[in-house]
């Protein structure tokens, strides 16, 4: 059984700690059950179920640390993995940045586990995919999609008495619908903790509509345009920015948060004042881990307030070195959890289109890669539904563009923010952005 209760997890970890002889020992335990179904050309291609349970042990003698993991749980194996970690610790060089383990803490109970999502079966998945396939078959379109659900837990314990446990579920669905001529394509991609919120039929209809309406795209000149980015496109662009809210790289001079001449840009007005970004593991639409890999509590944190950067994530080592308070970062990076939540307004995408004189509506971006680490300039392309807007109406589909743009510049050029929705591991509003830089055209559909 891959999903252990809090008591079951604690019992195993206590036993493991009982075998430990190192100065400090940290134990991690995690399990996941997941299932998936993939389809293309209007037929299922692959399907599978995977169950995993893993134990990790980190042993330290002074500043020497060794790590070992195992997925066997008899007493001999548990003792073996502890001895192996201790042996590696004795062989390892000293880590000058080693931080002593933290003691017990009161971690909030996570809210991300939904039993109905955990209870999904191959039949449930097949039924949900059948609804999606019906849309494409009925409309003489072709779909390719992927549905995946998982249920899991994570726990950690250490020789100083710390114990933490979280349980979560997740279901994600994406589908690309194309017309048979290959001249139009639409896409949707949504994730939820609760499968009850996933409607594969309705979502596939959106993708099908985009596939039909994007056919016969016209070429227009690349250049600077006002764009309306759907939440999926907005989240594609902003992933890199959130990782930049980090104290150490800013202090070291190798981040957009570094100040010319030294120091950081914390407290500066870096973005338009409409920009407000937080992370909150207790948000019901985007629940996250309540503790980080460092054993620190993860709490609601304000990152940007009215365009001013208010906090930078800081590891325990760097906090001690600089006399700062350690802070877990957003985005599930090195310091732990809580996805990015950006505030917006009440306008729908349709409302935003009505307010636009000339612009481009972008469904999603594709193959985004960093061009310049310092300015966060990225390149990538639009995909699966790009439309020209004039006088408050969508006029015609346009060929896909390649962009070269920085999310920092983008968040300075905010004209309007719509109603936020969950997109992957973020909650973001649709955004109307002026002067977005498209540099070339693509014939790809």
């Amino acid at each position, binding site marked *: 059984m891959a999903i252990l209760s809090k008591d079951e997890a604690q019992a195993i970890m206590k036993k493991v700690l009982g075998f430990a002889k190192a100065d400090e020992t940290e134990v991690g335990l995690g399990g996941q059950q997941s299932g998936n179904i993939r389809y293309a050309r209007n037929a299922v291609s692959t*399907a599978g179920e995977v169950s995993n349970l893993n134990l990790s042990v980190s042993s330290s003698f002074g500043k020497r640390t060794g*790590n070992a*993991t195992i*997925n066997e749980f008899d007493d001999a194996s548990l003792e073996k993995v502890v001895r192996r970690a201790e042996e590696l610790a004795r062989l390892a*060089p000293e880590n000058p940045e080693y931080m002593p383990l933290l003691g017990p803490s009161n971690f909030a109970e996570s809210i991300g586990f939904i039993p109905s999502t955990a209870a999904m079966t191959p039949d449930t998945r097949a039924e949900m995919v059948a609804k999606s396939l019906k849309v494409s078959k009925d409309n003489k379109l072709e779909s390719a999609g992927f549905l995946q659900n998982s249920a899991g837990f994570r726990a950690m314990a250490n020789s100083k008495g710390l114990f933490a446990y979280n349980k979560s579920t997740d279901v994600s669905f994406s589908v690309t619908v*194309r017309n048979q001529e290959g001249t139009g394509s639409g896409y949707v991609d949504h994730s939820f903790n609760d499968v009850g919120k996933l409607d594969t039929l309705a979502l596939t209809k959106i993708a099908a509509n985009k596939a039909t309406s994007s056919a016969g795209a016209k070429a227009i000149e690349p250049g600077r345009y006002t764009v309306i980015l759907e939440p999926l496109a907005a989240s594609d662009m902003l992933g890199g920015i959130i990782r930049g809210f980090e104290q150490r790289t800013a202090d070291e001079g190798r981040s957009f948060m570094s100040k010319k001449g030294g120091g950081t840009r914390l407290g500066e007005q870096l973005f338009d004042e409409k920009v407000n970004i937080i992370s909150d593991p207790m948000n019901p639409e985007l629940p996250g881990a309540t503790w980080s*890999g460092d054993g620190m509590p993860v709490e609601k944190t304000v990152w940007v307030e009215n365009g001013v950067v208010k906090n930078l994530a800081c590891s325990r080592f760097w906090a001690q070195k600089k006399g700062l308070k350690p802070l877990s970062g957003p985005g599930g990076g090195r310091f732990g959890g809580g996805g990015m939540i950006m505030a917006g307004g009440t306008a729908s995408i349709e409302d935003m289109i009505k307010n636009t004189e000339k612009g481009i509506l972008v469904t999603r971006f594709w193959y985004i890669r960093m061009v310049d680490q310092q300015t966060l300039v990225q390149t990538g*392309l639009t995909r699966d539904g790009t439309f020209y807007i004039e006088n408050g109406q969508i006029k015609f589909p346009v060929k896909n563009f390649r962009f070269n743009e920085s999310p920092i510049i983008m968040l300075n050029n905010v004209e309007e923010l719509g109603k936020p929705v969950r997109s992957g591991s973020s909650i973001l509003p649709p955004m109307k952005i002026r002067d977005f830089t498209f540099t070339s055209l693509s014939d790809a559909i």
Partner: protein
Amino acid sequence: MKRKDFIYYTGMSLGSLMLPKMSAFGRDIDPAEALQGVDAAVKKELADVALNAAKSKGASYADVRIGRYLRQFVATRDKRVQGVANTENYGVGIRVLVNGAWGFAATNAVSKDAIAKAAEQAVAVAKANAKIQGEPVQLAPQKGFGEVSWKAPIEINAFEVPIKEKVDLLLQVNDIAITNGASFVTAMISAVNEQKYFASTDGSYIDQDIHRIYPTFNVTKIDRAAGKFMQRNALSAPMGMGYEYMHARPQDRLSGIVTRYKDRYDILEDVKNATKDVDDKLKAKSVEPGKYDLVLDPSHLWLTIHESVGHPTELDRVLGYEANYAGTSFLTLDKWQSKKFNFGNKNVNIVADKLQKGSLGAVGWDDEGVKCREWDLIKDGILVNYQTIRDQAHIIGLKESQGCCYSQGWDDVQFQRMPNVSLRPGKQKLSVDDMIKNVEKGIYIIGDGSYSIDQQRYNFQFGGQTFYEITNGKITGMLNDVAYQSNTQEFWNSCAAICDESDYRLGGSFNDGKGQPSQSSAVSHGSSTTRFNGVNVINTARKIG
């Protein structure tokens, strides 16, 4: 450093091509365990359990992969070791064909009972899929090879080299960079050993031992007063070799504006050059956008080949199986059927090769028991073939698969992955210096940088590590903020000259991603330095206020 931190670190520094699945990295083990393989006779006995169980439950075809995947990472930052990890992943994956549909199941419990149970599970999955399957799977015939084996021709097993030797080398790399003025440096050696056993109801029992190695570093220099920083990565290539790759010989060095490496690599020399390069980059001028003739070093061109030739010639993309993730391809079947689709200039000859010595994709047999070989993809500029596996071969009229099936681990189903795809060198004698002499207004690009291409592989943009301005046949200085944009067909038609065999080198990727759930594979791409005329270069510099 903990494993998740290591993965984060490597992902950031290497700009991973795609996303390898976490479980592929396996569990940590003592280094000594890596040296012990599992006896082939034991694996045959276990494989027969799977095949017999599958057949008895109704499978018309079955294959089983027993895999032991070993990885070692040694990573350093400045004057300290960031992490040392040895991981092992061991288990069994069983694939079956029942009623014309595929089924797959995997277990990490390598016992006869667990394997038989997994085979039954795979049959059950296939039976469920068959109910909603469209056209039944049509599998190209494949003869059984009996009990055979293949071993990568390595000279030094990287797992046998003491960790201390690697740590000392990497700390020496960092010391050279810091001593020569770098602000920060990271360095890493990664080694992989896949011990794979494949058996099928065709009568094959194939035991393979595959090795890969990847040393790399990143040097950063910061100009605090100007508020700028510059970086340069190693000019190494990940290779299908042992630790001998780290021992460069005189014939492995190609002199020029910077030393480049052929077959073996000198990490100490390269880091010294890189530290000078970042210094020069801080002082270099920003490129004037416009049309340039590009001279592309193999350390750069491999990535352009990978993205613009390797991926669009994958038949599963052409057919639409990757439409929801990696995309489709502009190289549709009608273009291939015409036998005259002009992919590139007539000097462009691109070959798929699963046997190339020292390459990341070199194996004796693929992951469905097909013996590996070489074939043409682009011949004299014309599209002549694709990359296929057994259940696609009939679509392009082949009587057998081209052996392009691969899975990143025992717990993932095998599917179509790219073989080594390489540009053949020019037939006429031509050195890099001679090529540059003939360029009036150009840019010489060394090393790979940012990369992006659309979902049908038309429009692309590539950066690099270092850019040198060429004016009237001479290199006149270094440039910054360079990226070139083109359309695949236009780009390969602008190919004006290719250096000869003496300049031919491999580049490659350790982590090329594809599939849902995403899997990672390793692949090499060879070329000599090549010239492309009149390519659009943009200036990527922006002010962020």
